[in-house]
């Protein structure tokens, strides 16, 4: 309402002035690419940053201050496994000092009770633990780590004992998609107040393992159909958020809320990206926090402006009423599937290249996973 009034008051000047940039809300801080697990759907790039390239504590503290100045409200401390960094508690304290809401995204492996207490004391707001399966053997096989299931459960119990809010992030694919009910029951049993049903998105390692991970349409329809009954059944006890499986969707997702619009991502080595997969698009040069302030990057890095807004989109997006809802979908997916990052995300059933998605979804092989390794 105030926005409309503002535009009207600006008159012609408002009409010809460039559109003001949105403020980013969230910062994904990939503190390290090191991780004890080897999940075959990891969203990290195939080419990972090495330990010796990682930003130091002081640089992260500066990045958080600059992020808060840009309007960022929440920081997601992620990786790899963020606990692979010995200075994690100091990094977290710096984020809190900058006024940010802190979310720890962890595999659950490598966070000792002592470490968790340090993080809680440093002001940790929320913990998200990834869940591979409700069957221990299957869970450990997917993680590529013997004993991962047990260690995740133990960390969840410690988090809940500290009265920290817990989210179970359940990544769904062919090996566990039949167990939606069991997985949600497990999240409840862990004491999670929120569960994310995240169907695998095919970037990075997941793209490499696509045929081994891809569910059938029947499986997807069953899993998606269980969400509403489960929400009703557990209303008021656990919040269920579900991410629609890309390859079986009718419309594409509004990826990261629009390119360079609502969120940014800093890699372990300090490159700033509009999303974690952005480096898969060739021809974009991403600036580093080692050379620029976050504000300079947000406002001036040509890579951030490359797909901002909707002007670059072709038809059928240009005349589509959903243009400002999903921004034509995901640039990385458009590139991965069509070879053109400006194309309509072929997930959309209106895309002239939608058949590419259907063809890929039909390829399923029970091959061994290619585990994610540094």
């Amino acid at each position, binding site marked *: 309402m105030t926005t409309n009034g503002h535009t009207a008051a600006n008159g012609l000047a408002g009409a010809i002035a460039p559109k003001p940039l949105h*403020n980013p*809300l*969230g910062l994904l801080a990939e503190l390290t690419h090191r991780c004890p697990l080897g999940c075959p759907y990891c969203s990290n790039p195939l080419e990972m940053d090495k330990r010796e390239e990682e930003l130091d504590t002081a640089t992260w503290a500066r990045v958080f201050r600059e992020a808060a*100045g*840009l*309007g960022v*409200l*929440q920081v997601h401390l992620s990786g790899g496994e963020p606990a692979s960094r010995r200075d994690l508690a100091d990094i977290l304290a710096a984020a809190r000092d900058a*006024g940010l*809401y802190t*979310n720890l995204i962890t595999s659950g492996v490598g966070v000792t009770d002592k470490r968790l207490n340090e993080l809680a004391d440093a002001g940790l*707001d*929320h913990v*998200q633990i990834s869940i591979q399966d409700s069957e221990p053997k299957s869970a450990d096989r997917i993680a590529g780590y013997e004993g991962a299931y047990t260690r995740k459960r133990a960390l969840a119990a410690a988090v809940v004992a500290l*009265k*920290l*809010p817990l*989210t179970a992030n359940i990544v769904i694919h062919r090996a566990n998609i039949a167990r939606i009910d069991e997985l949600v029951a497990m999240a409840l049993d862990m004491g999670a*107040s*929120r569960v*994310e049903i995240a169907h695998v998105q095919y970037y990075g390692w997941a793209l490499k393992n696509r045929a081994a991970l891809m569910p059938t349409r029947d499986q997807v329809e069953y899993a998606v159909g269980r969400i509403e009954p489960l929400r009703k059944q557990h*209303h*008021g006890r*656990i*919040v269920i*958020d579900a991410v629609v499986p890309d390859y079986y969707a009718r419309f594409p997702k509004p990826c990261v809320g629009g390119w360079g619009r609502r969120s940014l991502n800093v890699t372990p080595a300090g490159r700033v990206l509009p999303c974690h997969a952005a480096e898969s698009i060739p021809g974009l040069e991403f600036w580093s926090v080692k050379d620029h302030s976050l504000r300079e990057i947000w406002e001036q890095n040509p890579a951030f402006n490359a797909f901002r807004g909707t002007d670059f989109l072709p038809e059928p997006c240009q005349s589509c009423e959903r243009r400002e809802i999903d921004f034509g979908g995901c640039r990385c997916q458009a590139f991965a599937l069509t070879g053109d990052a400006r194309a309509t995300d072929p997930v959309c059933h209106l895309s002239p290249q939608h058949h590419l998605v259907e063809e890929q979804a039909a390829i399923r092989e029970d091959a061994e996973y290619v585990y994610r390794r540094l």
Partner: protein
Amino acid sequence: MNNPAAAPSILPDARPRLPRGVRLVHNEAQGGWVLLAPERVFKADPIAAEVVKRCTGEASFEAIVDDLAKTFGAPRERVLADVTALLQGLADKKLLEL
């Protein structure tokens, strides 16, 4: 608007509070009050912010409604209905403990 028979109710001596991991903050760059929660950000209009600010775990629900009715010079019944709807909605989303 709500059917009174189906309207939710909150006990007068409930002491609503934000659970750990939910914080109300004021942020200039985002244009006002925001409620920060796990993986979620909610814009709070100034009235909602006044309500949530009072959910400290100390004041009873009854006292919060009285205080708001007085502060805003609004009919108590109306305030009771609005605040009940707001707080029950937050509790359903796990953003408030009643």
